[in-house]
C-alpha cells in the first residue's frame, strides 16, 4: 500500500538470500571457503595451502588455460542485471558483467569499471564517477558513460517504466538524474542524502546500450539478451545455457583487468547439498558450497581444500506484535520476549545443529560489520532461572497442565512457522520447542511451503512466530526488518515492531554520510534492540566453500562469495585442463 517517501533502502543481497530459499532443500546458505590465499607478485602466484596447515609457502607459476566447474543449488533465471533478483542469476551475472564499483572481502568498495570511488558533492547528493580509459565490450565496442547511464535509466527513468526491474522502486525514488557529460564521466544525482547508495546501487552489472538501446521497454523484458547475452564486460563471456543443467562461460579477452587465466567457467546446477558434497568428493565439480553437516566428510575425502569464515547470514525468529493478533497478546511484554531468549541454550546448538560452523549472535548487527557492537545493553546467555522468574514477574503463572497462563486465563501457547525442507530451521524449531516446554511455554513447530511463509511475513501476517534465515548486505542499515514504516503490507517488518527511538536512529543513520555518526546511531539501535528483542537473531552462520586441490587462486570471503568475486580472473588450475 502506501510506502513512505522517507529514505529507505537495502542492498539487494539480503533479499536475494531470502529468495534463494526456494531451493527445495535449500542448504544454500552456509557457504564458505577459500582454498588458498593468493598474492599477485610479478607474474608469480604465491599461495598458502589453507588446509595443509603448516607454514609451508610454495611459489608456483600460474598456468593459463583449463576450466573449472562450480556446483550450485539454483538455476539461473536471467542474465540481465537490471531484471535479476535471485542469487544464482546475480552470481553468474557477476562473472560476466562488472559494475561501476566492486566489493572487497571485508565489504569495502573499490573501483571496477569506475577508476575509483566517485567524488561526492558537498551536499552529499551528487556522485561523479570517472570510468577507466579504453573500456571495451567483449565484441570490441567501446564501453562508455552512455552504457552506464542507459543501465540506470532502465530502472529509474519513467520512459522505461515498463521494464520489470526489481530495482525500480528504489532507483526511481533515489535517482534524480544520471548523465554522461563526456564518454568517461558519469554523474548521478540523488534526490536525498542516502548513506548506503553506493553499496546498494553502485555495483549493478553495466548493460550494453549498443545491443539493448534500440529496444522498447516492453521488449527489454523478453529480449534474447536476457537468456543469451551476446556481449559482456566482465571476466567471462556467455557461451551457452542449458536450463536445469549448466551455464558455460568463456574467457573475455577484452576484460579491463586483463584476461582471466581460465579458458572456461562452468556453472552447474545440482539439486541439493548432498549431491554437491558427493560431486566435490568425486571431482565432478571443482568449487562448491558445503553444508555444515557435510563439512567433515568432504574434508575427509582429501580431494578438496575447504575453509569457512564468518558471514552476515543469520537465522532469526520474530514475534507477531500486532495487538489484534494472538501473538500481540502473548508477546506484548518485553519480559516475555526476553524470557524466551534466556531459555535458549544457543551454545549447545553450535555443535548439534551447525556442526560447529556458526556463532551465537549477541547483537542484531553481524560481527562482520563495522557497526557491530559486541556487548549491547542486554546480552543473552542461557539462564533458565532468569527466564522463569521473568515470566513469573510478568504475571504468567504455571497452570495445572504445566503451561503458563496470564490472569485472563490466556495460555502461553502458540505456533512457530518456518519453511519446510530446510533441515537446520526444522531442527531449530524442535529444539526451541523443547527449551520452552521446560519453562512452561507450549510452542508447536509448523512447517509450511516457502511461498506461504513469505506471504505470511509480508502480507497476511497470520503467524504467531516465524523463523527464517536472512542476510545483511555490506551496509549496517536494518530498516527493512525493524523500521515501523515497513510494517505496511509488503514490508518486511512482519513482526509489526514499532519503536520511535529505533525509527529515529535508523533514519538518522541513513541520512548522514558521516561514518562515525552512523556508528553511534547504530550502537544506540543495537542497545534498544537487545532490550526490546522483537525478533531475536539466534545465530550467525559461516560461509563454507570447498575447492578442488587442482584449483588455485580462489579467495572467498565474507563479501566475496557470490556476485562479487574480484579474484576470479586470477583463478587457475594446476593441470591446465
Amino acid at each position: 500500500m502506501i510506502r513512505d517517501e522517507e529514505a529507505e533502502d537495502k542492498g539487494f543481497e539480503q533479499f536475494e538470500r531470502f529468495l534463494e530459499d526456494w531451493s527445495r532443500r535449500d542448504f544454500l546458505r552456509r557457504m564458505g571457503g577459500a582454498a588458498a590465499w593468493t598474492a599477485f607478485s610479478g607474474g608469480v602466484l604465491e599461495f598458502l595451502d589453507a588446509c595443509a596447515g603448516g607454514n609451508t609457502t610454495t611459489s608456483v607459476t600460474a598456468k593459463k588455460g583449463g576450466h573449472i566447474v562450480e556446483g550450485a543449488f539454483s538455476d539461473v533465471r536471467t542474465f540481465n542485471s537490471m531484471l535479476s533478483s535471485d542469487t544464482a542469476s546475480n552470481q553468474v551475472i557477476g562473472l560476466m558483467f562488472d559494475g561501476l564499483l566492486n566489493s572487497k572481502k571485508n565489504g569495502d568498495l573499490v573501483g571496477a569499471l569506475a577508476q575509483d570511488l566517485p567524488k561526492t558533492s558537498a551536499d552529499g547528493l551528487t556522485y561523479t564517477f570517472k570510468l577507466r580509459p579504453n573500456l571495451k565490450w567483449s565484441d570490441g565496442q567501446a564501453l562508455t558513460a552512455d552504457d552506464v547511464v542507459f543501465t540506470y535509466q532502465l530502472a529509474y527513468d519513467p520512459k522505461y517504466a515498463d521494464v520489470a526491474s526489481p530495482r525500480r522502486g528504489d532507483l526511481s525514488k533515489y535517482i534524480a538524474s544520471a548523465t554522461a557529460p563526456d564518454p568517461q564521466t558519469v554523474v548521478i544525482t540523488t534526490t536525498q542524502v542516502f548513506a548506503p547508495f553506493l553499496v546498494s546501487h553502485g555495483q549493478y552489472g553495466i548493460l550494453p546500450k549498443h545491443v539493448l538501446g534500440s529496444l522498447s521497454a516492453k521488449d527489454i523484458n523478453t529480449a534474447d539478451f536476457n537468456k543469451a547475452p551476446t556481449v559482456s564486460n566482465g571476466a567471462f563471456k556467455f557461451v551457452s545455457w542449458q536450463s536445469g543443467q549448466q551455464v558455460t562461460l568463456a574467457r573475455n579477452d577484452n576484460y579491463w583487468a586483463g584476461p582471466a587465466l581460465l579458458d572456461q567457467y562452468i556453472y552447474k546446477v545440482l539439486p541439493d547439498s548432498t549431491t554437491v558434497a558427493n560431486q566435490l568428493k568425486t571431482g565432478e565439480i571443482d568449487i562448491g558450497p558445503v553444508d555444515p553437516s557435510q563439512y567433515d566428510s568432504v574434508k575427509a575425502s582429501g580431494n578438496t581444500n575447504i575453509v569457512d569464515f564468518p558471514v552476515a547470514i543469520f537465522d532469526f525468529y520474530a514475534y507477531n506484535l500486532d495487538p489484534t493478533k494472538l501473538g500481540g497478546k502473548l508477546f506484548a511484554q518485553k519480559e516475555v520476549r526476553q524470557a524466551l531468549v534466556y531459555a535458549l541454550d544457543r551454545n549447545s546448538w553450535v555443535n548439534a545443529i551447525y556442526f560447529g560452523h556458526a556463532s551465537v549472535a549477541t547483537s542484531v548487527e553481524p560481527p562482520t560489520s563495522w557497526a557491530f557492537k559486541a556487548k549491547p545493553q542486554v546480552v543473552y546467555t542461557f539462564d533458565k532461572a532468569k527466564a522463569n522468574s521473568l515470566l513469573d514477574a510478568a504475571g504468567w503463572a504455571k497452570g495445572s497442565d504445566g503451561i503458563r497462563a496470564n490472569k485472563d486465563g490466556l495460555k502461553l501457547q502458540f505456533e512457530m512457522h518456518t519453511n519446510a525442507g530446510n533441515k537446520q530451521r526444522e531442527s531449530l524449531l524442535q529444539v526451541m520447542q523443547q527449551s520452552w516446554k521446560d519453562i512452561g511455554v507450549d510452542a508447536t513447530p509448523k512447517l509450511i511451503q516457502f511461498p506461504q511463509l513469505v506471504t505470511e511475513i509480508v502480507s497476511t501476517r497470520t503467524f504467531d512466530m516465524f523463523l527464517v534465515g536472512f542476510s545483511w548486505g555490506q551496509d549496517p542499515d536494518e530498516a527493512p526488518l525493524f523500521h515501523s514504516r515497513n510494517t505496511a503490507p509488503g514490508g518486511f517488518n512482519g513482526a509489526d515492531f514499532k519503536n520511535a527511538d529505533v525509527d529515529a536512529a535508523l533514519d538518522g543513520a541513513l541520512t548522514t554520510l558521516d561514518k562515525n555518526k552512523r556508528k553511534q546511531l547504530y550502537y544506540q539501535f543495537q542497545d534498544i534492540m537487545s532490550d526490546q528483542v522483537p525478533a531475536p537473531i539466534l545465530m550467525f552462520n559461516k560461509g563454507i566453500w570447498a575447492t578442488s586441490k587442482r584449483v588455485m587462486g580462489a579467495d572467498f570471503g565474507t563479501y566475496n562469495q557470490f556476485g562479487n568475486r574480484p579474484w576470479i580472473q586470477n583463478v587457475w588450475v594446476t593441470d591446465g585442463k
Partner: protein
Amino acid sequence: MIDPGGITQLDLPGPAIEGEARRPAQSYWNESWERLRANRIGVFCGALILILALIAIAAPVFSQFVTHFDPARQHLSDNFRSPGHPYLLGTDELGRDTLTRLIYGGRVTLGVAFLTVALSLTLGTTVGLVAGYYGGWPDDILMRVVDVFLAIPAIFLFILMSILFRPNAITLAAIIASVGWGGVARLVRGEVLSVKQRDFILATRSIGARDLRLIFRHLLPNVLPVLIVAASLGVGQIILIEAALDFLGLGIQPPTASWGNMLTNAESYFFHSGWLVVFPGVTIFVTVLASNLFGNAVRDAFDPRLKAH
C-alpha cells in the same frame, strides 16, 4: 514410486477375462482361507505385519518400559551416539533415541498406509459400485472423473495437496488416497459389470429388490475378493510412496517421526553415522517386503481366477 499408475497397477489382480462366471459362496471363502493358511511365507509375513502394527499401537508402552525415552526428547550433548546403552539403536542429530522414534514412526507410517488403503477402497468401491450398477450417465460422469484423476501426474496432486492440507498422518493418507481411489473404482466397476451380466442378479431384480439391497447383498460380496487382494497389495506400495514424499519434503513433517522422514533425514549423515540410515532403511524394506509377500499370498488364495493353479 510416484506415478498415477502406482497403485492401480499393483491392484490389477492378473489379467481380467471379461464375462467369466463365478459365484463366491461359503465354500469359496473357506477354501481361500485354507489356501492362505497353507502358504507358510504368506502367513509368516502377515504375522510380521501384525506384530509391527501391534508394536506401533503399543508405542507408549515400549517407550516407557523398554526404551525409557520419549520420542521427541532431545539430548543435544548425546547426539549421534552409536547403538549401545542406553540408546539401543543410537541417537540422531538432536540426540533423540532412534528405537523409540522408529516405534513411534511405525505408528505414523503404518497408520498412513492402512488409512490410505481404507480411504481409497471406500471411495473407489463406492464410485465403482455406483458407476457399474447404474450405468448410463452416472457411469459416464464418474468414470470421466476417474480418468481425470488417473491422468493428472500424481506428483502435482501431491505437491498442491500437501500445500493445501499441511501433511500430518491423516491428511497425508487423504492425499495419497486421492491418487489411489481411481484405480480401485475402475477395478470395482469392471467386476460389477461382469457380475451384472449374470442371471441371478437379473432374476432378483425382476422381483423388485431394492437397489441398495442388491448392491450390498449381491454385488459387494462378489467384489470383495478383488478388494481384499487390492488392499493387501496396496500397503507396501503406500509405505514407499510415503517415503518418497518425505524425500521430496512433501510428507510427514518433523518433529513427527515417520520411517520415511527418518531415512531422508539420515541421508546426509551417512558417512559419520551410518546406522541412522540403516535402521529406518531396513525397517521400510522388511515391512514393504513382508506386505508384498503377504499380498501375493492373499492374491493366490483369494483370486478366484487362479483357483486352477
